[in-house]
């Protein structure tokens, strides 16, 4: 059995761990609230954008003349996986889940004979791929300097992807992130960002309302020009949303993980305290027996 001193030290150490996890939980909870607010504040723009895209999608015919962001390269050979994760660990299964989903997709693409390239946003999902598929990684965008996600940050990522697309580095791009359902549930999600999928008219509430009054919309300059300008913006908006959802998911996941850790530490302290008390009593009993048997022997 461990000595009393050793037990006491264990208990102290677990207690300080518990303090840390508790503090991390509180910090995550505060950050989660802010991240959720940011995600909600961003909703009007992306909803409007989706409805504009929807009404454009209804009028513009996708053909070889269409912008390449919409029409694609006509090939389906090289796939780019953009994997957004966090810069910090200790967030439960958050990063692992995103990485697992991405890995599944990567393996199915590789099995189908496609070429896969990986672009990482945030370093945490990169580590497992570094070990196994280092040659597929084409880039990593450091997010560690960013405290609150701004649209400009999303734009940097979108520009990077677009530049690589224009340079013909890939044909199809997928974005991986964790959709925020609640503080307890975060869903790793995959969306195709290039070629852009035009939402069908009627998929958004705004568009439904507009459906009721069909009107001839005047375009200035014209549909194609607007679309050409809208597509890169739409891409940035999608990335931005993904980053915001990711930020909220990360904090939610960390909060849950740290809550569990705090509880586990509490259980462990209880168990250790019981062992400590028993050991202490055993020692006292032993001393008493020694004294009594000593006295009896006289």
């Amino acid at each position, binding site marked *: 059995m461990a000595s009393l001193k050793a037990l006491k030290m264990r208990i102290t150490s677990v207690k300080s761990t518990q303090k840390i996890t508790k503090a991390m939980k509180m910090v995550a909870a505060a950050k989660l609230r802010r991240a959720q607010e940011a995600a909600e504040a961003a909703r009007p723009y992306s909803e409007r954008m989706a409805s504009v895209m929807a009404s454009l999608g209804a009028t513009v015919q996708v053909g070889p003349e269409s912008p390449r962001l919409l029409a694609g390269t006509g090939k389906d050979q090289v796939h780019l996986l953009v994997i957004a994760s966090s810069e910090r660990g200790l967030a439960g299964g958050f990063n692992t889940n995103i990485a697992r989903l991405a890995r599944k997709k990567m393996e199915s693409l590789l099995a189908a004979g496609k070429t896969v390239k990986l672009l990482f946003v945030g370093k945490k999902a990169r580590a497992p791929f570094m070990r196994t598929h280092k040659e597929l990684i084409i880039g990593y965008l450091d997010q560690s300097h960013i405290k609150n996600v701004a649209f400009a940050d999303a734009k940097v990522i979108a520009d990077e992807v677009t530049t690589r697309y224009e340079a013909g580095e890939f044909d199809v791009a997928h974005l991986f992130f964790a959709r925020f359902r609640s503080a307890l549930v975060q869903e790793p999600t995959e969306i195709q960002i290039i070629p852009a999928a035009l939402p069908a008219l009627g998929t958004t509430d705004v568009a439904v309302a507009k459906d009721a009054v069909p009107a001839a919309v*005047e*375009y200035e300059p014209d549909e194609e020009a*607007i679309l050409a300008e809208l597509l890169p913006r739409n891409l940035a*908006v999608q990335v*931005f949303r993904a980053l915001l959802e990711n930020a909220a998911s990360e904090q939610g996941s960390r909060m849950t993980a740290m809550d569990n850790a705090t509880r586990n530490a509490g259980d462990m302290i209880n168990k250790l305290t019981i062992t400590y008390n028993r050991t202490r009593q055993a020692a006292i009993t032993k001393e008493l027996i020694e004294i009594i048997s000593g006295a009896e022997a006289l």
Partner: protein
Amino acid sequence: MADLLNFELVSPERLLSSGQVAMVVVPGSEGDFGVLPGHAPMMSTIRPGAISIYEADSNTLTRRIFVDGGFAEVNDKGLTILAESATPVTDLDPARIAVDLVAARAAKDEVAIARFEAMQAAIVN
């Protein structure tokens, strides 16, 4: 019908302003256009410039907001402007812009030059 137009100015980060106004003049990429209540549906790109908002009636200009370009959509529900960034013209600092403009000219950054020139024009008017 009501004589007011539903106007919304949205940036990717948040809804900047939303309300009922009398008229809005938008710097479209092919020329400024005014939007009054009951305007026909249209969609236009915006060049960097100031949006003029006439809140009470269409003769008194109440607010001017500088936007960096974006989209304007008019539908039966009103006018929506999607802008990447927006600053009230009164918050623009002429001295700062002049400095930035010189820097942009030196760097031959066409986009930035156009942007700062548009800012200057917005302040003068």
